[in-house]
């Protein structure tokens, strides 16, 4: 193992830790989040990518799939022949990791899985929302990746489960209200109306995601019954009414949460709740009625970054709190979150590899 001296290692002073280099591999390297992992890890001071797998582009350069990575001297290799690494990142469709998890944990000290396979805490939930689980014994061992809600359990974790992008946006938006007692299981209906970009669908595509059909849409794609409801309930402790729309952007997930607190709240209460939750978070920003063009959270403002923006507004009658939350589904919503969690797990500086602050102006990111 090259990665001696993680923060979990008591012999290793933190200062030194950042000079260590951890070897890493990415399973599903041709995919969208796989490419994003490769981009982030390639620029990360403490990681060296030694393998990226693909079945369809075996032996091709990584830059052929991801033009931004043309400078990377790496070729895809088969997922059947995994090299031992310090950290294995897996970015395959749901169902693949649970089949191969025994092999993964043998191959790597730390496994970070971006799929839904280890996100939910109990096998019964996989029976209810998915097609069951083939390795339920790992579910308890897995730690949810989102540091804003699970930082304390990440150091030393050896199996980390990345959050779903829509769930991440929602959880980040509502968690401060839950923590502040404004919102709880008994509160009454919470409506979460989500708008997402086309990269959420992955590189696979299909008729509905071809450019002529997918351009310019406001398309209800998960009217009800979206699986992220289960994840939100698991981590917020409350059920939400969840609807997802596809809109014309490539990156980004934006959740608008409509909350009806039992007790009236003031703007000051809300600022207190959100500042309390996020003032010290390196990636969270509260954007709530500022001046200029960008007054509330927007996917554009965080595109390409690991930032999450949250903001809120009160209905005139104070009976409704509207919470806006915006992330880039490819970074904060998946690959960035995964690296952030790995940073915490290994005792690295939290923002390592994730410093990019985004662009302005930017089109449909």
């Amino acid at each position, binding site marked *: 193992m090259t990665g001696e001296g993680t923060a979990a290692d008591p012999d290793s002073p933190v200062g030194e830790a950042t000079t260590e280099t951890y070897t890493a591999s990415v399973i599903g390297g041709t995919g969208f989040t796989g490419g994003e992992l490769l981009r982030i890890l390639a620029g990360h001071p403490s990681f060296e990518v030694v393998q990226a797998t693909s079945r369809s582009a075996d032996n091709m350069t990584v830059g052929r799939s991801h033009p931004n990575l043309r400078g990377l001297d790496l070729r895809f290799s088969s997922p059947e022949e995994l090299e031992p690494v310090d950290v294995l990142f897996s970015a395959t*469709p749901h169902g693949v990791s649970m089949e191969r998890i025994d092999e993964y944990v043998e191959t790597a000290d730390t496994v970070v899985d971006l*799929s839904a396979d280890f996100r939910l805490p109990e096998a019964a939930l996989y029976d209810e929302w998915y097609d069951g689980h083939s390795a339920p014994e790992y579910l308890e061992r897995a730690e949810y990746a989102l540091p804003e809600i699970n930082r304390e359990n990440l150091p030393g974790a050896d199996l980390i489960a990345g959050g779903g*992008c829509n769930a991440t946006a929602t959880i980040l938006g509502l968690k401060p209200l839950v923590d502040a007692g404004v919102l709880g299981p008994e509160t009454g209906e919470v409506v979460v109306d989500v708008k997402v970009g086309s990269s959420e*669908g992955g590189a696979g595509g299909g008729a*509905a995601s071809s450019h002529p059909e997918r351009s310019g849409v406001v398309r209800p*794609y998960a009217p009800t019954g979206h699986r992220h409801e289960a994840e939100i309930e698991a981590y917020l402790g409350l059920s939400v009414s969840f609807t997802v729309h596809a809109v014309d952007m490539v990156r980004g997930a934006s959740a608008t949460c409509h909350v009806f607190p039992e007790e009236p709240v003031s703007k000051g209460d809300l600022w207190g709740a959100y500042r309390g939750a996020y003032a010290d978070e390196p990636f969270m920003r509260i954007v709530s009625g500022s001046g200029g063009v960008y007054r509330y959270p927007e996917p554009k403002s965080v595109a390409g970054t690991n930032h999450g923006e949250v903001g809120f507004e009160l209905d005139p009658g104070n009976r409704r709190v509207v919470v806006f939350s915006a992330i880039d589904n490819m970074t904060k919503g998946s690959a960035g979150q995964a690296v952030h969690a790995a940073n915490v797990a290994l005792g690295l500086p939290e923002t390592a590899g994730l410093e990019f602050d985004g662009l302005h102006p930017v089109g449909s990111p």
Partner: protein
Amino acid sequence: MTTDTDPLFAEDPITGEEIELPADVEVGEIIDSPVTGTELEVISLDPVVLEEAPELEEDWGE
């Protein structure tokens, strides 16, 4: 008029309205309702019985 055979009629399983089907539909075929657009499976032909087709799982990823 598109065929020589008589048109087929059936009850839309969702709205109960009478709908017309192409004369050459077969048992097991999936066609869409002209009223609701829903995809229907042809369960039997004489009489014509239609049922909502199991929805295509179309998860767009997470």
